[in-house]
């Protein structure tokens, strides 16, 4: 078992093994999301307050959850790469950033669209969660901009790892501060309240399902990242020469 994990940390082994994992992640993703959407869109009754608009939750919550999880993955991978000097971890961090940003954008967009019928505005400056998501988006942009600005890959890896760690420490602080401010200015309350099991179970399914999807998307991007970083190594050369017409 340990040997397997140890091997997984080496780029060539990871590259070869990861292609097999992807279908095993996509399958649960499709099943869970499929059930979640079916349960959420068709089976669950309309909400007492929000009518059918609440069904946006099955997109919004998984996106928001993934946007934060992706950032944690980015920060932890960067930290491990920085402290233990593992090349693969830096590749993980680089690969996860655009995915995290995409889900953050999705969370913001769906949150805004959801807000329009609920609060009457496309944007509510006082809502702690939306503000935290917005700031998170800026954190992602800063991370990607820093990576892009540094030419040397190793240097970019380390610098962005430091940035991600500093940002990770700040994320809970950001959330807390916006909540405090919101309580001052009596902003509109967010979608809260207890949930019917009929609404909840599909939601859990979509959250887990989207996480599997995220994993599959991430693996694919890590593979590309690894391939690119290792492009001049012997194992890549041998692999390409021995495989004709593979992806």
């Amino acid at each position: 078992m340990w040997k397997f994990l140890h091997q997984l940390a080496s780029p060539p082994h990871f590259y070869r093994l990861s292609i097999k994992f992807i279908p095993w992640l996509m399958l649960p993703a499709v099943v869970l999301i499929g059930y979640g959407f079916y349960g959420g869109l068709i089976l669950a009754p309309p909400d007492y307050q929000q009518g059918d608009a609440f069904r946006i939750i099955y997109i919004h919550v998984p996106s928001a959850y993934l946007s934060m999880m992706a950032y944690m993955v980015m920060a932890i991978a960067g930290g491990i790469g920085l402290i233990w000097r593992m090349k693969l971890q830096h590749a993980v961090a680089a690969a996860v950033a655009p995915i995290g940003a995409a889900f953050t954008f999705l969370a913001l967009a769906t949150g805004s669209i959801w807000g329009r019928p609920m609060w009457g505005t496309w944007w509510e400056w006082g809502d702690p969660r939306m503000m935290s998501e917005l700031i998170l988006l800026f954190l992602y942009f800063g991370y990607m901009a820093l990576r892009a600005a540094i030419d040397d890959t190793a240097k970019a890896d380390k610098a962005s790892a430091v940035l991600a760690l500093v940002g990770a420490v700040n994320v809970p602080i950001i959330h807390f501060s916006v909540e405090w401010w919101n309580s001052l200015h009596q902003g509109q309350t967010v979608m809260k309240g207890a949930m019917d099991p009929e609404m909840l179970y599909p939601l859990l399914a979509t959250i887990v399902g989207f996480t599997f999807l995220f994993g599959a998307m991430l693996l694919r991007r890590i593979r590309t990242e690894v391939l690119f970083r290792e492009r001049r190594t012997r194992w890549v050369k041998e692999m390409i020469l021995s495989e004709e017409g593979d992806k």
Partner: protein
Amino acid sequence: MDAFAMGDYGAYVWSCYALAAIVVIVSEWRARVRHKRVYRDIEVRIKALEDH
């Protein structure tokens, strides 16, 4: 068709689902395109070196 209309909220709800689909599909597509490009570039370079 009632399911489709979503009680007047149809436009909002479905645009969110469409947006999600677009984000995931575009992200995956771009990732695959990039992977193919990286692979091809390496292949070309290696083949060129081999021919010497």
